[in-house]
């Protein structure tokens, strides 16, 4: 691996890269994602512990929550993960058009996911009395079910929404041609964030809906 300085070709500048190929922005994003892992640990950990402590508050899969609808929703999120990766691959190949197309697909799929989740919330809250507040809780099981469900999936939904906003921003920058095969920072770290959010949903979907 030739020293970075030569590759960069700038005289006198030999920034030392401890992690070859992991430039600052990507390292920063990875580290931010670690803190996000701990944030979801706190919420999911509380859910796991409360479910272990008071199992009678919770229901078996499918009894209260609409599993088929969310399964499709999970599939939508997986597809958006793929489209994100296709966008990044397109950028690497220098195909600006492909980048913008796949970014748009990811945005559409992401917003669809959030939309379906909001629809699901309305269904649960309005018809089945499945609400976060303990005093108004009227569905099967106990108030812990509502509280933990809404806080976990709500904050995941918020992260997806932020991801969609970030993707929209990146798409606007891509239209202005800000990204090239050499300068793919922005797209890669949004992609990392997006895959992380999808990864969290894979875990969340399993333990909330299927157990």
């Amino acid at each position, binding site marked *: 691996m030739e020293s970075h300085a030569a590759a960069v070709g700038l005289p006198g500048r030999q920034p030392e890269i401890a992690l070859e190929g992991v430039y600052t922005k990507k390292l920063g994003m990875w*580290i931010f994602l670690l803190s996000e892992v701990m944030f979801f640990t706190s*919420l999911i950990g509380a859910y796991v512990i409360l479910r272990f402590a008071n199992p009678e508050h919770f229901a078996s899969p499918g009894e209260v929550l609409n599993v088929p609808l969310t399964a499709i929703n999970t599939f939508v999120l997986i597809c958006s993960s793929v489209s994100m990766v296709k966008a990044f691959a397109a950028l690497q190949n220098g195909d600006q058009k492909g980048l913008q197309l796949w970014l748009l697909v990811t945005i559409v799929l992401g917003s669809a996911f959030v939309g379906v989740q909001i629809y699901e919330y309305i269904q649960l809250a309005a018809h089945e009395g499945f609400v976060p507040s303990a005093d108004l809780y009227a569905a099967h099981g106990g108030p812990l079910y509502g509280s933990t469900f809404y806080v976990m999936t709500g904050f995941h939904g918020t992260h997806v929404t932020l991801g969609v906003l970030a993707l929209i921003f990146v798409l606007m920058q891509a239209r202005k041609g800000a990204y090239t095969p050499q*300068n793919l920072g922005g797209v890669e770290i949004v992609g990392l964030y997006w895959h992380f959010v999808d990864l969290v949903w894979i875990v969340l979907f399993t333990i909330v809906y299927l157990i």
Partner: protein
Amino acid sequence: MSVSAPTTDFDLLPFAGEHHEELPFIRKYIFSTDHKVIARQFLFLSLFFLVVGGLLAAMIRWQLGFPGQPMPGGDVLPDTMAPGGIILPEFYNALVTMHATFMIFFAIMPLLVGVFGNLLIPLQVGAPDMAFPRLNMASFWLAVPAGVLMLASFAVEGGASGAGWTAYAPLSASGEWTGVYLGQQLWLASLFILGFSSIAGSVNYVTTVINMRAPGLTWLRLPLATWALFITAWLILLAMPILAGALIMLLFDQTIGTAFFRPEVGGEPLLWQHLFWYFGHPEVYILIVPAMGIASEVVSNGSRKPVFGYHSMVLAICGIAFLGWIVWGHHMFMSGMNPMLGTTFMVTTMLIAVPSAIKVFNWLGTMWKGNIHLHTPFLHGAGFVSLFIIGGLSGVFMAATPVDIQIHDTYFIVAHIHYVLFGGSLLAIFAGITFWYPKFFGRIMNEFWGKVHFVLTFILYNVVFFPMHSLGVQGMMRRLYDPYQYEIFADMLPLNRFISIALFALVVVQVIFALNFILSLRSEKVGPNPWKANSLEWAVPSPPPHGNFQHMPVVYRGPYEYSLPGAEEDYILQTEPDEEAEPAERSVEPATR
């Protein structure tokens, strides 16, 4: 996947010598992205909150020393807090809660991590600025609203939160038990925002230390202050989000009535304690590890001698960081936690005393056979070591679970906290501010008044806090508005009154430091290296220009090569090349990693 890293990162951060454009006043001082300006902003913000915390402490001591008597100047407070100057019990609980909250989250933590993290890391690492300057600015500008929200919680109906800085549920989970509704919600929201500020900061610190070290600055040539701040950044990175999650759940318990921690609807109060202390113990190490780093710098500089056992000092910090995650249960021995868990936590807690012992012996080893210059930073450093010994040793009493039965939640614990936080962190902060004052403001603080302040603070500090061990051993509980209701504590009033008076004197003595700090802003300018130290921040002018180094520095040696045998000066900057090194070695090719 891309082979050559994109070039965008490094043209982002110009060195001082590479380009100049004058920034408008707003961008230069208010919304600045220069890590040194942000360090100064954090300095003034956290010193303000240090004063606020100190005032709250004085009020607590007034009530404990002169129970039920009107406080001088107390009639300035509204009747909901202190009618006729007499502090009400719920206001006393708010005082206790907010004193701890302001001191821990808004004074000591920003002073150590916000101020010295921002100032020292880029300079000691040889970088022009932090990895993400805008994110660094965001981290300060998130701390300000958090502070404002916390201050505002005093003024809302029902007063500020009175559930302790640990906010144990169910007391904190519903206003029904305390009469505090909006105050508790503001407390939770404020700490949640502060969590963002800390996480943004530590992402910056970790990335800068990993990716932007100057060539030749290997991991084992990093100064211990940067090592400490790096490990602390990791602790913040992994602990603060846990608190953020727990705060969210408690905030929803308070506002929309979810059931997480409310037992009457199925919640688990012990779950809050577990989550809080899982964050809480790394938090108390976040409050002491940077102080250890600063102490190492100052003790080594004062003794004109390398830090004794640099490698084991680094290992000790890493040891504290790893063990810090498996000891949180020792805060909960009496809380109804499974007693068998108590035994395992006792063993891990005993083990974590070892790295601290290693560091103390290494500090003593550093002074051994040194040529000790008793300048003010060194005095504060030595004060830190001596008081940290007491704080560490009193920790052993609590780690032994049967002894903890008698002294848990008594003034023994309060004494331990203050020996580690006031005697430890705050003395190290005084040392740090005095030592790096030139890098903040380009001037130097008055040595004489610095020594006077140290001596008075050291004496009065011990007079205030050492007797608290005795109160704790007698069984006097914490957070009692009027402990003398209990006949067995009634005879402790004289001692408490004595402690209160001593504390008032201690608070007054801090005025000396404040004046010294403010008046020295106009004292005579100093050169780049007034303390004759070695690390990179002393290779740049005081205060360093925007972009810090003229050109990318290259590091050839460790940070503590004081009194090299045969060298005429007893210090040598890290950028000094070795004489016998051939010239080529000093040119472009970076030293071995």
